[in-house]
């Protein structure tokens, strides 16, 4: 007898059945709002172009831009630009991760450091990263280091703050329980405080990534280094040559890359939350 025919199970919701059709439907349910939004944007864009508000060499129609985008994918120079930008992002973010995490632990553990740096870290988060560049260029010249410096400054405070608030918000009952179980000092940190802080830390990472990506794009527009054709440099270059289709195509690339990494962090956050039964907060 198949399980489905079992009368005892007949009252179960259809949602309980592992059914490949259902899975296909649920993927569709997750994807269609995004797809329709994109379609809507394309339609509006096309409509605006058709009104003749701006000449086509300034505001090209979607088809031209998409053709340009397709052309990018076959162009080795484009892939070089992508790899230069991504490498900068990853190196900068990794540094910010190390610095922000270290700073977060230090500040949360030491009363003196907290008094000294706590509000400064929050303040740093509100500082527009582009405001750092004149100083960074003064310090490092038009170099990779100037860009890296600002990327780290943009991302590290968010990461540190995420960790600090995670550590500050460990539920007191869990701390009491851990102490009765014999956890003290470093052991308490390693086995209780840090794991408990993880969801907030991951939220900080996600925000840190967003800041790093923005700082990086600002940096690539301002700090142009010879023979380093990054995405930002390409953007600048297309503007100078008034190549609107390529310019918009490049913006789409930057948007998609940023979203892709953001999705990775969202996924990570969702897994962490689901493991703890926190569910996803829908607003």
């Amino acid at each position: 007898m198949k399980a489905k025919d079992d009368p005892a199970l007949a009252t179960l919701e259809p949602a309980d059945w592992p059914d490949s059709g259902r899975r296909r439907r649920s993927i569709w349910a997750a994807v269609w709002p995004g797809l329709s939004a994109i379609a809507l944007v394309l339609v509006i864009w096309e409509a605006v172009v058709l009104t003749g508000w701006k000449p086509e060499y300034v505001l090209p129609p979607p088809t031209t831009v998409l053709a340009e985008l397709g052309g990018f994918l076959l162009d080795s120079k484009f892939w070089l630009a992508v790899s230069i930008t991504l490498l900068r992002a990853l190196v900068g973010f990794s540094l910010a991760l190390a610095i922000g995490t270290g700073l977060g632990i230090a500040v949360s553990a030491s009363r003196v450091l907290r008094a000294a740096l706590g509000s400064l870290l929050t303040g740093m988060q509100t500082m527009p990263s582009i405001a750092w560049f004149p100083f960074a260029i003064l310090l490092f010249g038009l170099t990779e280091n100037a860009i890296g410096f600002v990327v780290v400054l943009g991302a590290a405070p968010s990461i540190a703050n995420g960790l600090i608030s995670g550590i500050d918000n460990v539920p007191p009952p869990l701390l009491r329980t851990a102490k009765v179980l014999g956890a003290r000092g470093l052991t308490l940190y390693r086995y209780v405080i840090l794991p408990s802080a993880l969801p907030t830390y991951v939220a900080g990472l996600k925000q840190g990534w967003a800041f790093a990506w923005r700082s990086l794009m600002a940096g690539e527009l301002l700090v142009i280094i010879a023979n380093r054709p990054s995405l930002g440099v390409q953007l600048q270059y297309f503007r100078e040559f008034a190549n609107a289709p390529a310019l918009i195509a490049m913006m789409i690339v930057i948007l998609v890359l940023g979203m892709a990494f953001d999705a990775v962090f969202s996924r990570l956050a969702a897994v962490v939350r689901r493991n703890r039964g926190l569910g996803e907060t829908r607003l």
Partner: protein
Amino acid sequence: MSPAPALTVNEVSKVFTDTQVPTVALKDASLEVAEGEFICLLGRSGCGKSTLLSMIAGLASPTSGAIDTHGNRVGMMFQDANLFPWLTVRGNIELALRLSGIPKPEWDGRVQDLLAMVELPDAGQKRPHQLSGGMRQRVSLARALAQECRILLMDEPFASLDALTRDTLHEEIARVWAQRGLTIVFVTHNVREAARLADRVVIMSPSPGRIVDEVPIGLPRPRRLEQPEVAAASGKLRELLDHYDLKAA
């Protein structure tokens, strides 16, 4: 000959000074608990039961007086199970084993034994949020036992459970207590629970929190909540509580 004491509370007071007016949460409490004894602390809200328990657990220190646990390891269960949500049931118990310095090769066997003891042999891979309230308290009990405590402090551990589940857990705790020869200090404001479980009921009274009386419960075990003797004993406890309340007012 009376058995050796497992826990001695000597003239302990606790004053909280972080409030607007200093609060005397506990005044001159003295108590001696014998090895293997099951004590219930009974009293109304705010009479210092949790305060006393957390001082015995070493989570807070007395303002005056002294507490001696005679070298016994102390475990504690709270009203909420307080399982670590990022760990599985097995992970929660293993953390307790790790923190007690029990060598890793023994963990598997011990986890199995403990889970069997609380009648959850197959729950090891579950996450705390996937368990019912009663199951969570069972895991919490298993975790407390994992650290091989000799004194188990329980702060209204079953207060948030339904009557049926509580009844099962009463049976379980009485069984574990007898099997392991534990010394238990159990906080409750439920007279029937006290009469059902305790060898001796310590009655406390609020403002200021203090110990006002002790009542031995000599009923044979196993006991059941429905027994007329248990009902009679809880009636007597209720009268005593009311009596001390009137006196306080």
